[in-house]
């Protein structure tokens, strides 16, 4: 290898190092899902190499600007608004508000990434709109201010009654039943039995979750869609608790598919609750 070839190779390595180091800097600032990020960085690297042929690596890197600005540009260029993860999950407290709002969006899709955990939740706002209880643009600050506190208290009662009944049925079941049904196949009667305190445990968990959500909805002054989502999902949890309690206590022979009916009733009940709360504000909103 001649001296000229060696110095050329060194030059190329230096150029590649400059480009790699710039791409690493951009990567450190880049906020994109993995697939888009890799594509964006690969395109950036190819673009820099092409520019380096004309301008030299140093000038090319200089022309592309600060790494943070390049990352910002790439983030907006490569963000795919239609990207839907195969199985969405969310546990970050920062995303809770946004997810709760999405679950109470009358103009949104039917199913949205779950507020907490993995999977999808029903968009209660969409359901309430579909059954005529909510308009597209009802959830605004004026309506929020016009909702009387009594409406929130009634919402709390509407969640507490099924939750309380569920707890009472569970308590009577634990006291009276030697064994309770704990699992149903979709189309047949219960196929597994357990001690009643184990079988009724999910009832108490659902009831407690429902109550907790309702308490936060009524007394925490978050924005309207978040409060409604809390009240709505609290109501669903409470009705599911009651349905599960009644089934466990008295309907061991009923098919497991009955839980789907309970879920539908719970969802419609929650939509009605949300619609009633919003309507109480809409009828009081200051009209010009």
């Amino acid at each position: 290898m001649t001296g000229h070839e060696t110095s050329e190779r060194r030059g190329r390595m230096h150029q590649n190092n400059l480009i790699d180091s710039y791409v690493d800097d951009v990567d450190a600032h880049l906020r994109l899902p993995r697939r888009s990020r890799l594509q964006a960085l690969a395109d950036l690297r190819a673009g820099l190499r092409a520019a380096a042929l004309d301008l030299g690596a140093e000038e090319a890197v200089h022309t592309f600007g600060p790494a943070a600005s390049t990352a910002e540009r790439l983030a907006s260029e490569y963000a795919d608004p239609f990207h839907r993860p195969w199985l969405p999950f969310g546990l970050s407290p920062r995303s809770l508000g946004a997810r709760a709002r999405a679950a109470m969006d009358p103009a949104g899709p039917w199913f949205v990434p779950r507020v907490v955990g993995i999977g999808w939740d029903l968009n209660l706002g969409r359901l309430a709109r579909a059954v005529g209880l909510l308009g597209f643009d009802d959830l605004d600050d004026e309506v929020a201010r016009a909702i009387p506190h009594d409406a929130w208290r009634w919402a709390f009662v509407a969640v507490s009654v099924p939750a309380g009944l569920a707890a009472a049925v569970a308590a009577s079941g634990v006291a009276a039943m030697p064994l309770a049904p704990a699992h149903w196949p979709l189309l047949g009667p219960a196929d597994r039995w357990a001690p009643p305190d184990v079988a009724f445990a999910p009832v108490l968990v659902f009831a407690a979750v429902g109550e907790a959500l309702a308490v936060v909805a009524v007394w925490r002054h978050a924005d309207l869609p978040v409060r409604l989502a809390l009240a709505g999902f609290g109501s669903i949890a409470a009705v599911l608790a009651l349905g599960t309690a009644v089934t466990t206590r008295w309907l061991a022979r009923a098919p497991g598919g009955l839980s789907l009916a309970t879920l539908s009733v719970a969802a419609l009940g929650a939509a009605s609750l949300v619609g009633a709360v919003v309507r109480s504000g809409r009828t009081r909103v200051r009209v010009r």
Partner: protein
Amino acid sequence: MEDRQTQLRKGALELAVLAILRGGERYGAEIVDVLASLPGLDAAAGTVYPVLGRLNRSKLVDTSWRESPYGPPRKYYRLSRAGHGQLERHIVAWRQLVQAMESVLASPGDADTVGERP
């Protein structure tokens, strides 16, 4: 391809909504009707209301509730002062974009001829 076209329309929709409100305040369904009558925009309630919500949150439109002759009160939207300014800037940017794109699309593909005036 469908996604790209949706993206193109989405960018135009905000300007279209602001422009409709320039003529005076309107309620949501009215805005949807006007936009839905323009097939190129392919706008439906599910796309227009989120835009209205965004514009409201960024204080580009103000809202007020008014009695309706046919049922519950309606929410009316009107341009705020910031909205008027934004609309003017959008219009300028849009016209520049259209002019540039017309120039690019009309050229036979030779980069040197793009932007040349006859």
